[in-house]
């Protein structure tokens, strides 16, 4: 935001950066060799749906767009904070694997941006899991074009911070990792985790 925007009190939420998401397939390979975690084939997008008909219309359009591929693989849910999550499934055994998932996520994001709801995009999440049952969500922050790892453990709201930092070290050269740790906010129970 410019200093003039601040002085005149005209801040609006910034636009979303979408393209960094395409770095995920490369990072998924690194992650598997470093930690043994593999993509679950689940990914999701969270955004704040505005009140009124225009927002609902563009969500419906995004769902229709993905359904046209033949796989109607979008599930909509609303979390306790009022954010709408669109869950995308893409079989990791497919030829295009996690790249196909990222393409689907990008289609959802583009539809929302085209309808003027880009500033409402919160984060995108790609799920990973290990043979030992460990779960990891690679969370993409649209407004900063950065990623951070989120590793919930057990049923309680606890996260494995040491493992998250280990992942940060492993992925540092593949992805722009969010440097400000206070922005690594927990997304408990997010679809796709």
């Amino acid at each position, binding site marked *: 935001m410019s200093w003039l925007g601040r002085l005149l009190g005209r801040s609006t939420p910034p636009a979303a950066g979408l393209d960094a998401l395409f770095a995920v397939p490369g990072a998924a390979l690194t992650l598997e060799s470093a930690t043994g975690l593999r993509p679950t084939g689940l990914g999701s997008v969270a955004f*704040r749906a505005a*009140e009124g008909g225009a927002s609902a219309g563009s969500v419906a359009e995004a769902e229709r767009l993905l359904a046209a591929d033949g796989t109607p693989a979008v599930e909509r849910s609303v979390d306790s904070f009022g954010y709408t999550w669109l869950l995308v499934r893409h079989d990791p055994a497919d030829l295009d694997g996690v790249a196909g998932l990222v393409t689907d996520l990008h289609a959802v994001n583009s539809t929302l941006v085209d309808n003027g709801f880009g500033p409402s995009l*919160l984060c995108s999440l790609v799920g990973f899991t290990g043979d030992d049952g460990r779960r990891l969500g690679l969370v993409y922050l649209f407004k900063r074009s950065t990623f951070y790892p989120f590793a919930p453990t057990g049923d309680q709201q606890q996260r494995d911070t040491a493992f998250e930092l280990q992942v940060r070290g492993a992925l540092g050269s593949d992805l722009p990792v969010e440097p400000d740790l206070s922005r690594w906010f*927990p997304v408990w129970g997010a679809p796709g985790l």
Partner: protein
Amino acid sequence: MARSRYLPDRGLTARMGLTMFLLGLLYVALIAVVTTQVGLGLGLVIAGGALFAQWFFSDRIALYAMNGRVVTPEEAPQLHGIVDRLCALSDMPKPTVAIADTDVPNAFATGRTPQRAVVCATTGLMQRLDERELEGVLAHELSHVAHRDVTVMTVASVVGVLAGFLTRIVLFSGLGRRGGRDQNGAPVVLIVLLVSIVVYALSFVLTRALSRYRELSADRAGAFLTGQPSALASALTKITGEMGRIPNRDLREAEPYNAFFFAPAIASGFSLSSLFSTHPTLERRLEQLGSISAQLGRPTT
């Protein structure tokens, strides 16, 4: 390029710009007068220093005055979750989150920069509002932080504080001593006194006007951030309606901090004329939120 849904309010911007310009003129008038009386300079430096300290330590002062307690994400997961998400949406650093243990339903945000900001909600607020409404209030407060409102309002109030200080100095020391000895002194001192009083009165009205515009801007930016102007409107209606029913003792404690508040704490039986109030009327705020709601619901095509 996708179309933006967020349209600026040019009328509001123009009124705010004019207010800031007039305040700037007052600075010039005050400085011109002070330079005629070099002896007053020291007193003004002290007053300015006190104001600077108030700005510099604004986060700690407000927290202390309101008896706010900094809470961890484990203690207040809901509050932290809302603030986390709003900060991610608006791409601002996460402020310190605090809770004040009082039944007055209110929230405030202070801090000289977004990096040193504090957002505080009262327990009364969290009891009365649902999640959406609480989110609307916090988005309003975070917009104050994003707009650097503590800095803007401190700078705006400097001229009034200095003029008030000047008036007192001249009245209690300058007038009697200098007028007695120096034949040319008395008229000059009288001019200083007159200008100070006029500057003080004008700056009072102007800073209050500026404060109201900043509130409307924060409402607007907060409503755009969440996309839920009606939730904010509902929170406003609840809080302002509740305001008349709360104990007076709490209200008197809260009043000096009105300018940082979400809704002003007005003691019962005390009616403020709209010219002197720090916050716009409820009707004005609801009207703006209504038009934002209509704007968001409109299809882009």
